[in-house]
């Protein structure tokens, strides 16, 4: 992603977490926007990096979500995963991003680290089709089981693909 940020890289390096991540998984791209510290970690090292961050005090898992960059200008990758971490001890927050691509967008599940990720990763799987390896129970969360598409992808139309009209009608005799 070529995202411009308000501040230069000088202040970014000062962040202790970024420095540790740099030492751990090579130089990570980090930026600050609206006082929010963000880092981009390599996908294959995401679990270890997040595990490291958990040990460094980010004990509260706020959210994991996905952005489909299909129509985004200058985007190099299809999907961006966003992990929002916070701490209960202090007011620090960190946004960890990583990128995955078609076909078979896959990333390691962080449920072993935070139980909170369980349903959130299921939701990402449901709506974006990102496969989380190591997830204990990767089922659809909000869409019906028999649904085949992943509706928050950008190539899925707003009105749907007519699934709704083809839902089986359950009569009283068959229920």
């Amino acid at each position, binding site marked *: 992603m070529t995202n411009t940020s308000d501040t230069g890289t000088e202040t970014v390096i000062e962040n202790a977490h970024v420095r540790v991540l740099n030492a751990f998984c090579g130089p990570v791209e980090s930026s600050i926007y609206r006082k929010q510290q963000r880092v981009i970690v390599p996908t294959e090292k995401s679990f270890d990096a997040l595990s490291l961050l958990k040990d460094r005090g980010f004990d509260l898992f706020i959210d994991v979500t996905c952005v489909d960059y299909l*129509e985004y200008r200058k985007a190099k990758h299809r999907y961006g995963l966003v992990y929002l971490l916070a701490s209960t001890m202090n007011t620090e927050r960190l946004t960890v991003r990583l990128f995955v691509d078609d076909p078979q967008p896959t990333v390691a599940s962080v449920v072993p680290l935070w139980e909170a990720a369980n349903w959130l990763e299921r939701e990402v799987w449901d709506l974006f089709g990102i496969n989380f390896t190591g997830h204990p129970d990767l089922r659809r969360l909000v869409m019906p089981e028999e649904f085949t598409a992943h509706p928050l992808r950008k190539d899925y139309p707003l009105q749907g693909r007519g699934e709704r009209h083809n839902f089986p009608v359950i009569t009283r005799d068959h229920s």
Partner: protein
Amino acid sequence: MPTAQPEIESSSEARSEDYLWTLNFGPQHPATHTTLRLVLKLEGERVVDAVPEMGYLHSGFEKIAEHLTFNQYVTVTDRMNYISPMANNVAWHHSVETLLGVTLTPRCTYIRTIVAELARISDHLLSNGAVGLDTGAFTYFLYAFYQREVIYDIFETLCGARFTNSYTRVGGVSHDFTPLVIEKIRAFVKTFPKTLNDMQRLLNRNRIFVDRTQGVGILTKEEAINRGATGPVARASGVTRDLRRDDPYLAYSDFDFQISCASAGDCYARYLIRMQEMRESLKIVEQAIEHLPSGPVNVGNDERTTLPTKNQVYSTIEGTISHFELSMSNRGFEVPCEESYAAIEAPNGELGFYIVGDGEDQAYRARCRPPSVLNFAMFPHLIRGHTLSDVVAVLGSLNIIAAELDR
């Protein structure tokens, strides 16, 4: 169904799981209050396991967000946590303004603080009232609901809508406080503590209520953090995290208030936390209404961030120009190609939006971080080993709103 059925064995002796009974609870059940479903595995009265199912109210709010402008989408946020829509409005536009870099006027921050706190009171009233209702305290529920009605009345006077307020706008609010609104809020601040005392006397030491909630659905501090609990649920378990203090947004740094915490982590503690938070919210509302800054409520016309009032549109050329600049599809806001997350302490916990901007005045992606999902996900953990009648107590104390859960 995900609960594995025990395989039939050839031996004549039945296994212990064979005595388990599966009960389908919801999606249409009076005690779920909304459409959510639980598949309970029972051994007599005792719940061995519970599998929550959701999605019955899924309406693709996040997909709609990619097709509505920042000001239009506020109507959809009303329908997320519909028992405190004002808080959702404030959360949404707080996130949008974080992305756009809009600084609000002091009067606007105070007004938003007041409506958010009133929303918190009305949310906690219904949440606690529903716990009372489900555990047999009907009178308590009526006391709570009457006061909610008063808050609805304030909101109706303020913006014309009782329920789906759609009150905030980018850089401001749709209606400024009028003297009548201020008068009504002052009257509420004066009369509400009396009802709150009555409610406290009705339930806090009520033998039936305490027996049904104390020690039920215990969430330890470690589990609360591990499972991502925020808001009253986390604070009842001893997590002293409140964004109003830790990350003061709007005008919260100006006020004197306490963060309520408990260490028990059971349904009764969550009830007490909500009761106490209403008192603290009232303190904030009182301070804010008495020190309401004067001056403009919206960011000025010149900046072209807030839609001008209709009066300005029809009587001044600047207002007309701003209106068309903002409404036309090829003009609108200046949105950076950036991503940001901003959250507020909503009545249910941390409610935030992760917004991706791509230069258009619609969000490229707007992710809502719903506290209900994380609260509902921990339900099986809380209910295991308790009886069937405790299901409604735990469910009520978590205050799960299906519309926010499914979006």
